[in-house]
Structure formats: C-alpha cells, structure tokens
C-alpha cells in the first residue's frame, strides 16, 4: 500500500513537471506553428539562473525573476532576429532554432564549462502524507504547477489577450484586418512560451544535475508528449504527459533508464505511424 502511494505520488510529480516543461513548447508550436528546437535550452537557462543566484549567495526565490528576465531577453532577441522572418516556413524555423539551440549550449559551455553544477535543495525536509513520508519540495512543486496551469488556462479563456491570441490562431489574416497586431502578439506568445520553460528550469534545478546538455532531454520528452497527446488541447497535453511520464517511470523501475527511454521512443514512433494526430486532436 505504501509503495503504491509512493508510486502514485511519484507518477503525479513526474507528469506534472513534464506538463510544465511541455507547456511552453506546446504554446509556441500549437499557436504559432514554430517548432522551437531551442526550447530545452530555455529550461537549461532557467536552471543556470538558479545556479548563479545560489552561487552569488542570494535567496533562491530571486532565481524566478532573474530566469524570466533572461528568457524574455533571449527569447525576444531570438524572435526579433530569426523567428519573425520565418513564420509559415516551418522547415527553416526548425533549422534556425536548432542552430540557436547549439549556440546557447555552446555559449553556456564556454562560460560555465561542461561540468555538472548542483543547485542546493531549497526545502530539504519531508512531509508525512497519506501514511508515507514524501519530500516536501516535490509536493510544493506539484501545487505550484497546478496553480500555474489553472491561472494560465483561465487567462487564455477569459482575458482579452487570450481572445486575441485565439483569433490570431484561427485566422491570422482576419485578426490583423480587425486591428489585432498579430506580429506583436506572436512575439508576446513566443516570449511567454520560453519564459515558462525558464521557470520550469528554475523549479527543477534543485532536483537535477545542471549541465549544458540537459536541454536536449527536455526537448525530446516534450516532443514525445506532443506526439502522444496531440496538438491544441490542454487535455491532450496532460494525457500525453501522464502516458510518457508514466511509461518512462514504470519501465525504468522494472528494467533500467535506457529501457525507459527506449520505450517512450518506440511509443512515439508507433503513435506517429498509427495515430498521427495523437490521442486528443483538434480535428
């Protein structure tokens, strides 16, 4: 029973963190049609922000505004110099953002070296819950993620900007004809998307090894989730996170990490072949 509860909590925890990471990519890919190959690098930038904040001796909480600042600046630069010129040219966007990903990786590697950095636990204690002892930071993290999702979803459904974005996605031409500044809106959407990645990086930093190449794993697991869950719905995103996070955790526990990775990769290939629109599709 206790093992089961631990497994369920671990499952919720890993699905929730995955959902947070994929959120920004899904926004940018689903709304703007831009496959941001540098998405994982923004997670990495967030994690390095947390590392820098801690090594400067500041409170961990500072990492949040700093990482968002970093991501807004880098994201804006990226949108302004590259993405903006490539909307509706998905293949070129893929290439260019792949280049940016390498650029950011190599830049961080040149500054911080390839070594692992560790970010200290912010909340090392545990909490007794449902009869088991569970790390309190993880529980707080789950709560924060749920809060973020609810807020973002409500904002997207209720706010004027959310309405404008939805209008732009459905019909960009008409949206700009009725006075919506679609190019600014795209910039804002892109920046929000990468900032969420940065935020995810900060929150995960105490739990993972921070190094220049972590972004790649996050990009790929986000991408697997998008394949399985399908584009365009929140339900799909959550189900995809649960399927990918769940099967990875399960297979990894039974066999090893490589087997877990192999299983989600095979699952994604099968989905591309048999259900190319994912479990939940807009169509």
């Amino acid at each position, binding site marked *: 029973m206790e093992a089961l509860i631990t497994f369920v909590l671990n499952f919720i925890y890993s699905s929730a963190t995955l959902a947070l990471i994929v959120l920004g990519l899904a926004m940018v890919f689903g709304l703007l049609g831009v496959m941001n190959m540098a998405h994982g690098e923004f997670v990495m930038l967030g994690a390095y922000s947390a590392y820098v904040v801690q090594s400067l001796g500041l409170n961990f909480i500072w990492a949040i505004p700093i990482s968002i600042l970093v991501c807004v600046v880098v994201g804006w630069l990226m949108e302004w110099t590259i993405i903006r010129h490539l909307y509706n040219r998905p293949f070129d966007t893929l290439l260019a953002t792949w*280049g940016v990903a*390498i*650029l950011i990786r190599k830049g961080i590697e040149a500054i911080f070296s390839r070594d692992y950095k560790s970010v200290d636990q912010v909340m090392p204690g545990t909490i007794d819950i449902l009869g088991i002892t569970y790390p309190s930071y993880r529980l707080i993290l789950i709560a924060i993620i749920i809060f973020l999702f609810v807020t973002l979803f409500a904002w997207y459904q209720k706010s004027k900007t959310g309405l404008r974005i939805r209008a732009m996605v459905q019909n960009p031409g008409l949206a700009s004809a009725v006075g919506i500044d679609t190019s600014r809106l795209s910039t804002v959407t892109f920046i929000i998307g990468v900032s969420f990645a940065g935020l995810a990086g900060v929150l995960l930093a105490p739990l993972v090894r921070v190094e220049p190449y972590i972004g790649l794993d996050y990009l790929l697991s986000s991408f697997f989730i998008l394949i399985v869950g399908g584009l365009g719905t929140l339900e799909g995103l959550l189900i995809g996170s649960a399927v990918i996070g769940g099967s990875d955790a399960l297979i990894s526990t039974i066999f090893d990490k490589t087997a877990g990775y192999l299983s989600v*990769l095979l699952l994604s290939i099968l989905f*591309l*072949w048999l259900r*190319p629109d994912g479990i939940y599709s807009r*169509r």
Partner: protein
Amino acid sequence: MAYTLVVKSLLLAVLILIPFLTNSYFAYQLGLYLLYGMVGQGIALCWGKGGFLPLGQALFFGIGAYISGTILQDSVGWLSVISALILSILIPAFIAGLVGLLVFDRQIGSGPYFSLITLALSLLGYQLANSQVWITGGFNGLTGIGGLPGIDSYGSLYFFIVGALAISTFVLVYLIRTPFGQLLEAVRENEERTQFLGINTSLVKAAAFAISGAIAGLAGAFFAPHQGIVTPQVVGFILSAELVIWAAVGGRFGFIGPIVGAVLIGFLASGLRDSFAYWEVGVALVFILVVLRMPGGISGMVTSLLRRFNIDILSNNVSSRSQIIPKKNNLRKPVLKFDNVSVKVGNVSILDNLSFTIENPGVHCLIGPNGAGKTSALNALTGKLDYNTGNVYWSGKSLKGIRPFRTPKIGIGRKLQVPSIFSNLTVRQNIDIAIWVNRLNIKHLFSLRPYSWGTNLLKDLEESFPFLNKTDVHAGTLSVGQRQMLDFAMTVLAEPDLILLDEPCAGLSKYETEKMILAISKLAKTSKATFIIVEHDMHVVELLSDNVFVMHQGKLLAQGSLEEIRANKEVQVVYAGGSK
C-alpha cells in the same frame, strides 16, 4: 555534366596526391574528415534533395564503426574485412529504412517529427553504447581494433578512404540523375502532387534515408581501423549536430559541398578549438547565418560565382524522346457512384448525404456556390478526406480508405485547385514525372531509359501549349496561366479513365481560357475518358459540359443538361441569393 566530371576528377586527383605533397599526419587527419564528409553526403541526399533533415546521422556512422570494430578486433583476414564492410552497410541501412517507413507513412512534408525522432534515436544509441558494455566496451569504448590486413592505418588506409569516397560520390551523383533522384526532388518540391502522380512518397523518402544510412555505415566501417578505438561519442548527438553543420556550411545541394564543409571546419577546429573558447559558438553562428542567408553554403556561393562568368555547372543534358509509348487501352465503361457520403467536422457538415452516379464518359461539370462541397467531394473520392458514413464506388469497387498515391493506379487523375507543379524542376522534368505515372517500375527507377519516353498525347499537348517545349525553363518561373496548363498536361499524361479537374481555368486570361477549353474538348473527344470539372465560369461550363451537377451545402441539388439546370427553380433560388 562533362564540366562537373572534370572538376570531380581533378578533386580526386588532388586527394590521391595529397600524401605525396604533404606529410603523412596531414593525410591521416584529412582521412578522418573525408569520412565525416561521406556521412555529410548522405545528409545532403536527404536534406538537400529530399527536403527532410536527419538530425541523428552519427547513429548509423557509429553502428558501422562498432560492427567493423568488433570484427576487426578478433580476426585479420580479408574475408572478415569484407563481411565487416557489408554488415556495416546493411544494418544501418535496414534500421534507417525501417524508421523512415514508420515515420513517413502518415506524415507529409518536412515537418519536425522525422528530425526529432532521428535525434532521439541518436540519443538512444549513445545511452545503449554506454550501458551495453558487453558489446561496446561502454564508456571506455571498443579498444584494440586492428587495421586492415597489411594496411598501415597511418599510411595507405588513406587511399582506401579516398576510394570509398569516390564510390559514394559516384553512386550518389548517378542516383540523383535517375528517375529515383528526380522523384526524390519532386517529393521535396510538392509531396502531395507527387502522391497524386501515383508515387508512394513515403517509400521514396525511406529509401533515400536508408541509402544515407548505408553511406554513413560505410564511413563508420573505415573509422574503426582508422582510429583504432570506437567510443560512445561516435553515435552521439554532438557528432550528429556537427555533421549537419558541416553539410550545411559546405553546401547541402550537392555532394562535394558536405566534404568541403567537413574538411574545412575539421581543420579549422583542430587548430582553433583549444585556443579559442568561443570557437563552437562561432561555428553555431555561422550555421544560423547559412540557414537564414545562404542556404547553398560554400558550394552554392562557388556555383553562383561561376555562373557570373557564364559557367553553368548545373545544366543537364536533355535526352530526346525517342521511344514513343503506345496509347493505353483503358476505355471500359466507367461507373462512379457516390452513395450517401457524409463528412462532418465539429458541427459543420461538409458533405451531407451526397449521392450521385456517373455512368457515361464525357465532360461532367460540378458547379455550386462557394462552400458547396465541390472540392471536398473530390477529396473524398481521392482519399484526401475521410468520410464518416456512406461510400464511394469506382468501377464497382469501394474507395473508402484509399491512399492518394493509389488513385492513379486505378485510373483516376487529379489536378488540384491551386496549380501544383514542381517549381524548382524544369518543365521537362515535370513532364517526365507525369509520363512515368503507372509506367515506371522498380527496374526503371535506377536506369536512365525512362528519360527517352514520349507519348503521342504529349505531342498533341505540345501543339496546344507550345511552352511545354521550353524544356530547360524552371516551372516556378512560368506565369499562372502556364502553370495551370502544365498542371493540366501532367494530370492527363497518365491517360486516366477518370480525370478530375478542379478549376482548370482559374486565373487564366480570356485567350488562355479558350485554349484550355479547346485542349479539354479535344482530349475528351479522342480519349473518351470521363471528366469531372469543378468550375465557376459558366462560359466554360456552357462550352464543355455534357452533363451538369449542382451542389449546395454539401448536397446534390440538381443534375441534368445545362438547359435543364438553367430552368431549375431551386438552382435559381440558390444562385439568385434567395433562401431555400
């Protein structure tokens, strides 16, 4: 072509002479970069020619290296060397082909899925190489790999590498001239159109990917004896990314560019990597610049420079159409039947119990206001649109679930609403591909003979549309009217029994419209095929139609001769803007 042959022979001569002109260490280093360049050639085949980007090509290189390393560890006979080479080619090719088949089967275009899957595969390869110590030696790698028997790895092995490179270059250059290569480029230009010309495009792409995997594996097979050690880095994503960068910077549209890129950046990196911390950042910047500003890379720059001096190294020889293929005998009595076909997307009814039957050859026009479902009906017929209920029958067979690339085989040809041609191919190449529909088999795919095929119908079409004779003009430079005509010609060249023309006269001038009408009615008389023409221009309908179908809100509203339709009260209501 002769010109490029001279250039390539000269380059080969230089490569052979290099060990005699420089020191042996230089040649040894060059050998490694040439191997990377070979992998780059495979990337160029997929990316430059096929339009899809493999991001994990090091996987196949590494598999080749591990296979040949394992075999060379134990034995030193030539038999084992040859078996190592064969396995290092076949196994990566098989894996690449299989992955390609699965991923391309349902995805059209060059979307991110394929690239990311290959990237993930390379990451998986890296993990496996690290964890499966019993095969790979794990983190420390496969060590103690012997050289080829009697061959000095620091000396004469170089010539074997140059030989392998010469072979891969020759094979690729030949391959791209064959119908297979032309079809691969057609897929890059317009995959949907290629499917409606009867090509299983996913198979073409998967084959190209398998070939690129084979070449990478061959390069890897030489890597093992060359380096004497194979570590997990060889299958990893870092090398994969570098390979893509080298191919891009050198130039991905040809097969020399990737080698130039690998050699140039390779030597620069070995000199600068350690002394200049931001070297790799600089390389990434150059890559982004190439992607954004000069997609042809270094080799593209050289080509356009040469063109300025009127040296065109890319011009193709055009063979004459000496072999006239006889006309198809396909004129059975066509029966097309739509039986209660309904399509709903969300709350919107696209087709609403659409039923009609066509039993006579001739020209049937499909008219109706915008949004009536005319194009959707054609989409349902050709497998582009799934229907929820009902069925479509052609010659008694159900077409439910048919894949678009199968429609030409059962005698259906389709011209899409927007003229879709292969813009970066010449008019001649566009027509070649159309002539090959239903006539090309596996054997022809890799021979040059199909370029000499012609038909009498083509001669007729060239009379109607003289610009079709301008063989070396790129189709993308044609006017809208000419594109429509080219698209029409390509649709009918397969001599289908059922010809679907979606607004063939859209965007045409009055004069061009008359020419098009003339060509269609001439073909209708001589071929006795069945035409379904979606058209808004009543002038066209008047001149061409034997029979008219009127659609409204996804349903069939009326059917009959044009006089009957004009007299129909319901049709008048719809077209006069009244409500029903």
